[in-house]
């Protein structure tokens, strides 16, 4: 056999692979990672399915109410049903309120299973009626607060928190083990630079980790979620992979840098854990605190006070309507539709108008609050540059469509739709126009407008680039230091 020249790097890679396989650490770490990735994915899928089912249920509910309403309206118009003021579909005020089966819904993004993010707390549907925003916009999904506090064991958690620890396990003694063991002297008497040695070691370990953490979730998603197969989703998956790879690389670069200081394995492990604690645990919670201090959340007590004042004012304003003659119980005939007109009971008209007034009065305050929240989010976006963990978490949730941005957009669109809903009924209630069968099918419809994919992918791309830049700065620092490392 003719001997064939080999690049040193691939030699090191092969050799390291063999060593790691033989002493079983790699196997152990990979098993742990595979287990966690599998479990995290399972949790994510379960949550996503739960939310899918909720939306489906809501839509079914909507459909049923609509059918019931039109059936009811037909029989009312035919005079076959006894009339009840609050559930008469011919009455626009009832349609706008108690009878309304309209929901604003937001579907899961196709990759929702990758990160639970805010989806366990923020509602993905709102019931739309003429009620004031303060009454329905602050409803939340039901979840045990203790569990919210603990957080979910989802894939994002595995990546942001656990992956760096596994990198640490594999990398804290990249060089120090060889030195303590004594093999470094023999290695370095060969025509081999420490930079090459370190690169080879990192490549093996990184490939092993990435070979589990990246393909497993993507393949599972592609198999069981048909909606994840679109071109846009494939781009997002690519981004996701790049992000995870960059984050892993960052931690390996840190490990390499720590190893070039030339301390013992134990000390290296301590330094790595300290860095992990600071970057992943301490920095995010400190920044959360800082964000709260620099840009405090709006005072909900103030909102409650303003709501009370606004409610009292509108009660006073429509006092006449509230206390008007009320003859519908004794005289149901009054509720009949005549010439496409219907008498809207004045108390119902008062409810509608009062709620509308409350919202008008509170609007400036809510605007200010939204502004404040937006300010907070902007601050977080900027601060995330300081901590790789925050950076990666924000990016992962935004790929999964479970980030604050998307829920804020949903809230905004819902508010606009709520407005539209009221405007549709306002003239009908004021002019006492009865609802017709045709009206029922032309009620304002909800359309969720998805956030532009290009915007998301752009914001993630530059996070990937930032992460890579950070990793390569640390990595080249490590490589540069390695040439001056004393072998002693």
């Amino acid at each position: 056999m003719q001997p064939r020249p080999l690049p040193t790097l691939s030699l090191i890679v092969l050799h390291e692979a063999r060593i790691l396989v033989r002493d079983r650490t790699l196997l152990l770490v990979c098993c742990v990672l595979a287990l966690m990735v599998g479990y995290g994915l399972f949790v994510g899928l379960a949550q996503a399915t739960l939310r899918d089912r909720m939306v489906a249920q809501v839509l079914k509910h909507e459909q049923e109410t609509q059918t019931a309403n039109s059936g009811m309206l037909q029989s009312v118009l035919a005079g076959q049903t006894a009339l009840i003021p609050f559930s008469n579909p011919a009455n626009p005020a009832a349609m706008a309120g108690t009878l309304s089966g309209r929901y604003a819904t937001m579907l899961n993004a196709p990759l929702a299973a990758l990160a639970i993010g805010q989806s366990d707390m923020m509602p993905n549907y709102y019931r739309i009626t003429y009620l004031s925003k303060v009454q329905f916009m602050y409803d939340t999904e039901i979840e045990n607060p203790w569990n919210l506090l603990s957080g979910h064991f989802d894939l994002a958690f595995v990546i942001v928190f656990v992956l760096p620890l596994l990198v640490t396990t594999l990398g804290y003694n990249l060089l120090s083990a060889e030195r303590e063991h004594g093999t470094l002297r023999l290695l370095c008497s060969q025509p081999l630079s420490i930079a090459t040695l370190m690169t080879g070691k990192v490549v093996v370990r990184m490939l092993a980790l990435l070979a589990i953490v990246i393909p497993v979730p993507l393949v599972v998603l592609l198999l069981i979620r048909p909606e994840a197969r679109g071109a846009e989703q494939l781009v997002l998956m690519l981004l996701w992979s790049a992000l995870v790879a960059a984050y892993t690389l960052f931690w390996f670069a840190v490990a390499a840098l720590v190893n070039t200081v030339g301390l013992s394995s134990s000390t290296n492990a301590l330094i790595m854990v300290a860095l992990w604690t600071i970057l992943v645990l301490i920095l995010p919670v400190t920044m959360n605190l800082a964000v709260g201090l620099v840009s405090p959340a709006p005072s909900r007590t103030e909102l409650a006070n303003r709501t009370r004042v606004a409610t009292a004012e509108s009660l006073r304003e429509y006092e006449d309507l509230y206390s008007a003659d009320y003859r519908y119980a004794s005289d149901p005939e009054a509720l009949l539709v005549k010439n496409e007109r219907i008498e809207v009971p004045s108390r119902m008209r008062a409810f509608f108008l009062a709620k509308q007034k409350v919202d008008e009065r509170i609007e400036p305050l809510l605007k200010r609050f939204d502004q404040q929240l937006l300010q907070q989010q902007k601050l977080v976006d900027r601060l995330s540059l300081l901590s790789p963990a925050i950076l990666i978490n924000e990016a992962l949730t935004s790929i999964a469509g479970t980030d604050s941005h998307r829920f804020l957009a949903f809230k905004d669109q819902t508010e606009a739709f709520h407005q539209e809903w009221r405007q549709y009924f306002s003239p009908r209630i004021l002019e006492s126009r009865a609802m017709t069968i045709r009206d029922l099918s032309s009620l304002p419809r909800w359309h969720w407008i998805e956030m532009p994919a290009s915007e998301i992918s752009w914001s993630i791309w530059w996070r990937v680039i930032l992460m890579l830049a950070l990793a390569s700065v640390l990595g080249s620092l490590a490589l540069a230091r390695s040439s001056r490392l004393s072998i002693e």
Partner: protein
Amino acid sequence: MFAIIAAKDLRELTRDGRLLWAGGLVVMLMLLALGAGWNRQVQLNSERSAGQALDYDAWLHQGYRHPHDAAEQGMHVFKPEPSLAVFDPGIGPFVGSTVWLQAHRQSEVKFRPAQDATGLQRFGELSPAWLLQVLLPLLIIVIGFNSVSDERERGTLRQLLSLGAPARSLLFGKAAALASCVGILIAPVGLAFAVLIVVHLPAGERVDVVYRIAWLAAGYGLYLGFFVFLTLAVSALARSSRAALVLLLGFWVAATLIAPRTASEATNLLYPTPSRLDFDDQLARDVADAGRKAWSTHFGARTQWDPSVPLSKWGAALKVDDEAGYGALDENFGRLWDTFERQQRAQGWVGLVAPVVALRGFSMGLAGTDFSQHRDFSTAAEAQRRKIQNIVSEDLIEHADRLGNAHFTYKAGPELWASVPQFKYQLPSVSFALAHHWASLALLAVMFCLSVALAQYALSRPLMR
């Protein structure tokens, strides 16, 4: 002997850079957390009590109005922050603080701070409790992982034992040294904070808070003690310092980071939480059923708007309707909240491998920020709402008017408003918390004893080797 070893170890530890750096960081964070928490609490509490007073004032001076419309304006009540929430905010960020008590709907506690926060909130809240639960065990591990193994590697352990130092004094000397390192870091800050809190309280609440602080100190003492002895045990059992470090760090990660999440996922599967839609549907159906039954027994009518029930009977009708709903509300909300509590109780068992889960529940409970105390507030708020509702209905029954269809022209005045008492919520006392959380404390004590036994076993072994 014991004191000599403790003094020697303490000197070694204080000369080591690890304690200085890690300890300095922890103390700094602790001060930061306390400062920010204190500031927030003072602001929130003053805001809320002012809001509450204003709200009641507005209720009293709402002028002449149909009682039912007064219930429409309703009343806002605010949950007071327990004073120890600065120490441990507990589930605070994930439950609301404000209830709008209106007619005909069960009031829900709204405005969760976490909803107004960014995604960062999910990383956790920088609170003194978090520091003690998560970072201090890490600190103990970092400064203590080699306290036995290093002596063995350097050969000084042989020397010590050959001089006749009993293993027991060696263990407790080392434990005392580690514990005093932790003590030096947290005791001054903790004490100063405790005094500050107690001094700022009205005299009536002081005793209760002092008891709470004492129980908290006991709980955290057991928890940190567990880590001290565990660290020593592993340090003695492991083959090398490096192995001890890796083992201990692995345990720390699994116990403080992974176990709580896994536990909450698991109990969610065991006792599933209903979705809001399901819950609301069920509630609406139950309320409607109860209402229908009540209507037919009291008025022989099928619906509320039956012509056979005149408006003059509206007060009585409302009363029947509301009271019929109470049972359904109690049952549905009771079931939901029981599910939450059952989930949490099931997680208590995880405390057997991850003491942080047990401690977290205990700490929240004693700080007054756990779910049972939140439930207590929600129940009180709902009771207030029913009180308003009943007073309104009674008034309407009393003034069963002869106005016929002009029923809604009836106006009640300030005397009626004044008959609704102001909402005064008294935070439950320390015995309430202990009744809910004694099991966690017992569990912590058991874990502590186990770790002491393990350490004793581990330290008696090098003699044999």
